[in-house]
């Protein structure tokens, strides 16, 4: 990390997060390296070895064990963090549900990468989007600064007494994780002040007040009520997410919300998108606006809890909404974000058209002209009287390789 202009660093996305973790200095980090998250674990292990943090660093033999150890540490009362990607995320699967049901405020960085197969190390959102029902709060970042900012805010949100849920925050593998971009970090002391000391609830190590964690809860137990309680915590999280964002804005001047709209106020057509592609989409919106097309955009910042009320309001005047998914839900009507947006707008009157687009699977690049093409579809649909097909539309898809055969 070189420093030239005051306060701006040239770092990779992973370096930005490792820096946030250094400043947070959690009690325990349990992790297993996987591309493209590896750099975080490597940098953090170095910080531990150099005595720059006081963290107990637990190296595990798999992500299943890393999340198990994180659960144990968090249940004991430690502020706990981890990080993963792709197959590692998939291997954590059953433990994700354990962490959220125990109401453990673990913070996890997920560097988005495709799931096998075929084996692919590049960016899409299949890994974390697949964990949408695991009871974790999910926050998606767009760039280096947001990866850092979200990591800091995640600690406050997870530990908030109204929430007490694990939080995962995401950013695009390689596109952000391995690219050099600008970061304006906070001073260490201000980070410490912002996150504050950790006060665990019912920690196992409080031997004066013994508790049982994770017992059998059978047919006549409280499993059902427990699940409802988790969902109520998710509902309370909307307010906490915004409050923490507002407090962060007072500290940094960088304001975040549940959603991130752009030129939406008078938009007739709009794209909903997650992650770094939002940046590219903004450029296209500006180009279209210069030509007189009333185009807009919303970036999904928080995916769980899904801010459906906020989306319904923000998009109420838009005629046609295109949702760009970087993951698919095979056999569903469209991609996962599409399904959410379409459901969120169902009660709107008039009800906008919502069209599904799939892009960028396995790291397939997405160029401004691809997004322009998507806007073209929306523009065309807005001019028609009858609603157009909600069949998936693929951006930058190559032909051949048996696709024609499958389509027969």
């Amino acid at each position, binding site marked *: 990390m*070189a420093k*030239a*202009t005051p306060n*701006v660093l*040239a770092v990779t996305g992973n370096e930005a997060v490792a820096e946030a973790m250094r400043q947070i200095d959690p009690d325990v980090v349990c992790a297993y390296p996987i591309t493209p998250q590896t750099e975080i674990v490597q940098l953090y292990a170095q910080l531990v070895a150099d005595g720059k943090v006081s963290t107990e660093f637990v190296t595990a033999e798999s992500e299943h064990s890393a999340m198990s150890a994180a659960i144990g540490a968090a249940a004991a009362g430690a502020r706990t963090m981890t990080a993963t990607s792709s197959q590692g995320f998939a291997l954590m699967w059953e433990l994700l549900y354990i962490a959220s049901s125990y109401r453990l405020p673990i913070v996890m960085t997920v560097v988005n990468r495709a799931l096998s197969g075929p084996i692919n*190390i*590049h960016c899409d959102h299949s890994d974390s989007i697949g964990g949408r029902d695991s009871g974790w709060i999910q926050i998606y970042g767009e760039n280096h600064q947001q990866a850092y900012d979200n990591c800091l805010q995640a600690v406050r949100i997870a530990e908030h007494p109204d929430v007490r849920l694990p939080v995962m925050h995401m950013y*695009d593998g*390689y*596109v*952000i994780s*391995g*690219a*050099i*971009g*600008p970061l304006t970090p906070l001073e260490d002391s201000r980070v410490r002040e912002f996150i504050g000391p950790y006060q665990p609830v019912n920690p196992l190590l409080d031997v004066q007040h013994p508790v049982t964690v994770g017992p059998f809860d059978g047919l006549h137990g409280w499993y059902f009520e427990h699940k409802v309680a988790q969902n109520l915590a998710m509902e309370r999280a909307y307010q906490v997410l915004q409050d923490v964002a507002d407090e962060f804005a007072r500290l940094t001047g960088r304001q975040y919300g549940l959603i991130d709209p752009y030129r939406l106020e008078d938009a007739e057509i709009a794209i909903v998108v997650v992650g*770094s*592609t939002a*940046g*590219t989409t*903004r*450029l296209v919106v500006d180009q279209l606006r210069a030509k007189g097309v009333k185009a807009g955009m919303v970036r999904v910042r928080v995916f769980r809890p899904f801010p459906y009320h906020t989306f319904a309001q923000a998009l109420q005047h838009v005629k046609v909404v295109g949702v760009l998914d970087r993951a698919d839900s095979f056999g569903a009507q469209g991609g996962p974000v599409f399904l959410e947006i379409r459901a969120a707008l169902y009660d709107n009157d008039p009800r906008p058209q919502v069209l599904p687009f799939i892009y960028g699977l396995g790291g397939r*690049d*997405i*160029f*401004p002209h691809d997004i322009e093409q998507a806007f073209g579809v929306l523009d065309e649909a807005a001019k028609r009287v009858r609603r157009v097909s909600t069949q998936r539309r693929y951006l930058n898809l190559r032909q051949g390789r048996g696709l024609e055969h499958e389509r027969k």
Partner: protein
Amino acid sequence: MSVASAKKRGASPLAVESPGLVEIRWHARGGQGAVTAAKTVAELALGQGKHFQAFPEYGPERSGAPIVAFTRLSDEPIQLYSGVEHPQIVVVLDESLLKAVDITKGAPENAVVLVNSELTPPELRLRYGLKGHRLYTIPATRIATETIKRPIPNTPMLGALARITGLFTLESVIEFLRYEFGKKFPAKVVEGNIAALTRSYEEVRGE
């Protein structure tokens, strides 16, 4: 350094249509330091208060495999995250790639193409049938071998790039290497790199 001052130094100015955004594509083989060079140019931009982005196109991570990396520089914050399609500058760290890769793909006619080669630009055109663009060559591997004592061409390419594009001054890159390399390497290595920069700045050949 502005285009005007590049002209003053007798180098061909970089005719960038949109002065706001400069896109560079780097071609090399794994191990030649192209990613480091791409990052160094980004860090030099940071030093000028410009906005920057540098990223490799991740592929097989093995020594000798063809790799591509990109640098974007801009006066405005950079929101574009797709690969570079129309680079104004193409830097080729390994001449043998001219047989394997379409190095000028998507580059506009006025793009600057800098190749690590013992040949002069007209000789290089003749050997590989290169047409169009503004071609420059620099024997970077030889310069590196003679100054740094290792055949890693990335540092000399930066000296040549400073001269022909004016994106950064020779002085600024010397200062940067002195600081960054000074943290990691003995003085002999640092001075070798600075000699490589200075020589390549002087020896880059145009048409």
